């Protein structure tokens, strides 16, 4: 039974990867060709990808009989889910289709990393150490994926903002209308990016706090300056600086967009860089 479920899990993983990849390509084609059918297909592919993503998480949960939040592979699965669910919310709430071209490629790259760099032994459900058997872990990772997902969306919005302002500069020089002109007004992109950070920042804080509570139960220390903890604090500081600079110095627009891009680069480093370059207590995820 477990064996056949594992086969299903592998199949669903590739359906998810294919759907997200297809969605990205279709979004780009829609940007280039302007045919609405591509946009609809891209959205459909993203929905198929999200369904497969949810199924993959559910199957792993059934196979391992615990929330699938304890290995690098499992975290990437839920990270992708967090990104796409945040994207779907913004897409349907604000009718922002073009965002898909910049956000959906992020899970494609993350899943591509699993395919390229993770061996079969790293992907299968395996036994977990006693320290990971805690309800705090579930809240810790759940808040992390919501925060990271929203940061990914703010990253996509910030890229759109920069492209839009660059395009505006060139249209001043009488360049023809291009696909970037169909993006919403830059002030809308800027404020939405801020809104996403405004949602994600308290989530990241809660993620760090629940991690500290859990560490205190497991190891008797709420903060040990482990590289993962330290880099999550650096991520927190970068976004705190983003919020302050925006509010106090009017760092809206392009400066804020670059800060959001830097913030997401640090989010990715906190996950990949720390796991693969810097050793520490978080070596499992």
């Amino acid at each position: 039974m477990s064996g056949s479920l594992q086969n299903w899990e592998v199949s669903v993983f590739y359906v998810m990867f294919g759907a997200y990849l297809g969605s990205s390509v279709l979004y780009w084609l829609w940007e280039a060709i302007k045919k609405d059918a591509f946009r609809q297909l891209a959205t459909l592919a993203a929905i198929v990808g999200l369904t497969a993503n949810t199924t993959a998480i559910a199957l792993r949960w059934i196979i391992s009989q615990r929330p699938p939040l304890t290995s690098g592979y499992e975290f990437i699965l839920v990270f992708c889910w967090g990104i796409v669910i945040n994207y779907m919310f913004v897409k349907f709430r604000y009718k922002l289709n073009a965002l898909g071209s910049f956000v959906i490629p992020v899970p494609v790259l993350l899943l591509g990393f699993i395919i390229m760099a993770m061996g079969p032994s790293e992907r299968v459900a395996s036994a977990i150490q006693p320290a990971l058997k805690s309800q705090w872990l579930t809240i810790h990772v759940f808040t992390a994926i919501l925060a990271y997902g929203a940061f990914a969306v703010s990253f996509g919005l910030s890229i759109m903002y920069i492209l839009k302002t660059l395009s505006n500069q060139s249209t001043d020089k009488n360049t023809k209308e291009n696909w970037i002109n169909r993006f919403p007004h830059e002030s809308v992109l800027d404020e939405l990016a801020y809104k996403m950070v405004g949602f994600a920042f308290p989530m990241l804080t809660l993620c760090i706090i629940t991690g500290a509570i859990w560490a205190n139960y497991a190891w008797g220390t709420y903060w040990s300056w482990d590289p993962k903890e330290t880099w999550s604090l650096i991520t927190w500081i970068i976004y705190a600086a983003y919020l302050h600079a925006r509010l106090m110095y009017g760092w809206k627009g392009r400066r804020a967009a670059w800060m959001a891009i830097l913030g997401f680069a640090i989010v990715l480093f906190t996950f990949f860089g720390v796991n693969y370059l810097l050793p520490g207590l978080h070596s499992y995820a």
Partner: protein
Amino acid sequence: MSNKSDELGEKLLEIFCSMKLGLVLLGIIALVSGIGTLIPQQSMDPNGAQAVAEIWRNLGFTSVYSSPWFHLLLGLLCINLLVCSVQRFKRFYKLTFAPEPPKESSNIPKKINAVISGSDGEALRQKTQESLKKKGFRITQLEKEGKWNFIAQKHGMGNWGPFTIHIAFVILVLGALTGSLSGFSGYIMADAGREVSIRDISIEKGQVKENFMLKINSVEDRILPNGERDNWYTNLSIIESGEEVQRDTISVNHPLTYKGMTFYQTSYVPGAEFTVDMMGKKFPVTLQSRGGNYFNAPGTNLYLVLAEIKGDPQKPVIFYQVFDESSQVKMGQLTPGQSENIQDTYTVTFDKTIGFTGLQVKSDPGVGVVWLGCGLLMIGLILAFYWRPVRISGSLDLTEPILTLGAYSGKYNMGIKKEFDKVVDELKA
């Protein structure tokens, strides 16, 4: 002289009030923290830290997070946050509890603005009041010279978000500081049946002030039927003046607290129990696997070490080594009940396998303060980001009657505009 010192004081206050200083300090703290993850730290990798060039070691880069200059940076940030918060307290108080209606219609915000005309001034005033109250706004009003001016506010407590966040951060740092300056941490590695005085544990930091005994009743490495490890369990008793005052089973993630001291299950080491027969005198010896401890036979230079335990748990095989000061003098393997003569000095018999429990013992008086800081931080963030205040001010000329309305835009122009438009639509209907 007095003027000069006043000027200096004002200048210092100005610097500490500046958000720029806070941002610069945050940036430096982030940078230094990042450097600390790239350079081996004394607390995590002592050998790696020793290999770092002396100049960096002397500058504290191999113990960044406990270095005085890192504490100084945190201290400066706390002072900055405190000064900023105290200075802005009055403004937040006024904004929340005593907002002032605009004195002139020219003071009404213009970015998000609307003008509504009606046929009856009094009716328009009543409609405006009812509509705003229905939407949860609190109205502060002023009437003079035929004009009704007001300010209406919703989610007023949201004004306290930034203040709460900054104070929470200071509390958090103070809690961490309390923990690092007082309290203690220690470690126990013991097998079942062992009684240890709390004053005899290996101390890593601080001093033990209490005096009681700790008895390890049982140690278990519980494996589930599917072969996965469930958890490590230690049943322990606290004994005061010969009386058992508390008994509990702890496991990873489920510690026990007694008199401000918390016992955490952190590790488990398999081991074995032996009987040593030395000149007709028999006594038990317990050894940890992989050379965690040793047995030095009294009056000899022989050290018995348990190298490894292999085989089925029902039929274990242990591998032992015997050393003198300079080299290995004997090695071999034993199954339960088997004996071996060690250099004609004593006989060792392998009785059974046992478990050693590794317990971290901690007392951190600052931890409650840290959780208070964390709680306030979350409350502050919820107030600042999910409970944003909406303020609308207006002026109604009761004689004309024309109502000018404007909303104060802050962080979210779009959201405020939406809320404002709803109010305006209702008033126009």
